[in-house]
């Protein structure tokens, strides 16, 4: 068996091991590889940067489950930190049934860092099922969609949100989702109500949302761990995303090497087979 044939039949567990090492080693021996900020992430940052504490609150919908947490939690925290650092009022909620715990964790963690108080500086609305209907109903009356916050307090008794009723009373929406919930925000909040929507998404779904950027249906997009690292860089608070970028870059290099080796081996083998066929 020649070298290329052996490469074509390499045990996939060796590849898994290489990837595991490529991710593990940069954590122990950080390389501090540089990152750069893309326009789509900067658009989100710039729009939030223009807001003042007197503006209506920012609505942040934390619509993901633990499976998407490694990618989306860092960017959620980064955007929350940005809002709280500017003393903006924040409303958080979730439309994913596995999201309440993660959303509460992220909201509380960022709020505590900046000394923000529940009910005064921010409100966590909790979870509601039936995504499209909730988003649509919020356009008519948020208090009907969420009669009370996550802790059971009626919204009418919470000073920060008592007078917030429709999207007209919201500055902008940022949704963090690993599923089609982003599309629902575009379709039901941006489409009929013209509410500015930005999205943070997993890298897998980033390409699906680029068409929405071109048409202005989304005003910005934070894609994957790289997008989260860019946002952390913009707010000047390094977090898990920036720490993870070394591992991400090295793992990508390993994968590129494997793809090249696989292709070279494939074409060399095919050429050999074609040559053998002619000789035969």
């Amino acid at each position, binding site marked *: 068996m020649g070298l290329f044939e052996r490469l074509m039949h390499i045990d996939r567990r060796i590849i898994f091991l290489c990837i595991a090492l490529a991710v593990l080693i940069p954590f122990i021996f950080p390389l501090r590889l540089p990152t750069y900020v893309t326009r789509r992430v900067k658009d989100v940052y710039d729009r939030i940067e223009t807001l003042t504490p007197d503006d209506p609150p920012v609505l942040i919908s934390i619509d993901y489950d633990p499976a998407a947490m490694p990618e989306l939690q860092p960017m959620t925290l980064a955007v929350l930190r940005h809002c709280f650092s500017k003393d903006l009022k924040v409303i958080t909620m979730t439309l994913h049934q596995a999201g309440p715990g993660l959303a509460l964790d992220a909201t509380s963690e960022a709020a505590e860092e900046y000394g923000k108080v529940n009910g005064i500086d921010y409100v966590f609305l909790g979870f509601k099922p039936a995504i499209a209907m909730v988003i649509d109903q919020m356009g008519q009356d948020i208090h009907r969609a969420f009669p009370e916050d996550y802790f059971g307090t009626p919204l009418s008794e919470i000073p920060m949100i008592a007078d917030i009723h429709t999207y007209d009373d919201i500055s902008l929406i940022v949704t963090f989702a690993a599923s089609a919930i982003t599309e629902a925000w575009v379709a*039901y909040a941006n489409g009929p109500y013209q509410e500015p929507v930005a999205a943070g998404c997993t890298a897998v779904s980033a390409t699906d949302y680029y068409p929405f950027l071109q048409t202005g249906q989304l005003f910005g997009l934070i894609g994957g761990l790289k997008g989260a690292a860019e946002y952390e860089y913009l707010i000047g608070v390094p977090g898990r995303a920036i720490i993870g970028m070394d591992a*991400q870059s090295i793992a990508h290099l390993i994968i590129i090497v494997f793809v090249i080796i696989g292709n070279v081996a494939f074409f060399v083998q095919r050429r050999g087979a074609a040559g053998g066929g002619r000789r035969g």
Partner: protein
Amino acid sequence: MSTDLWVWLAALLTFCIYSFLYRDNPVYKAAEHLFVGVSAAYYLVIYYHNSVLPNLARPLWAAVTEGQHGNFILIIPGILGIFFFLRFFPRGGWLSRWSIAFYVGSGAGLSIPRTMLTRIIQQMQGTMVSFIPTQAWRTLLAEPTIWNGLWLMSVPLAAVGVLCTLSYFFFSRPHRGVLGVTSRIGIVFLMIGFGASFGYTVMARISLLIGRVYFLLSDWLGIIE
């Protein structure tokens, strides 16, 4: 190293799941079943506390005790919701179709016009406008950089890509002549799209591994902060 039992359990379950990479085994199966069971129970509790109680039970209780008679309207969706569960009983199972019909009908009525607007009309509008890239021109004139120049070029390129890709999916004529050329260009755009999606997918999967490795090294072992 962590002294929290739950962190140890999470670390153990992480290894159980990753053991599948070596080969399928009972430890992986046990962790998988545990995940499914815990998720189902968690979702049930979440739905009850976040939807049934605040949107149905409490308003109905207020209708009875506080005279908020308008809330009695919620009896109708409440009954339709109960009908869903009649699927478990052979005699009354047919009633669940009423609930499904209501759910499908209202869902379709709500989503069709919005999806048309979002996915088709606004996207078509964006493609047409992109033939005249005024915003890109303005940005380039205000800030003449290579990136802004490339952006200017990319705007009509997107429109060309849409038309060529659509021509590839036009099957009423053989792909020869002009249609053959445009459909081949369409294939190139499709391949670039698939390549970008694959690249992003790789990035996402590696990110998930990074998340777990970070958890193991920081929360569990305490090697990194």
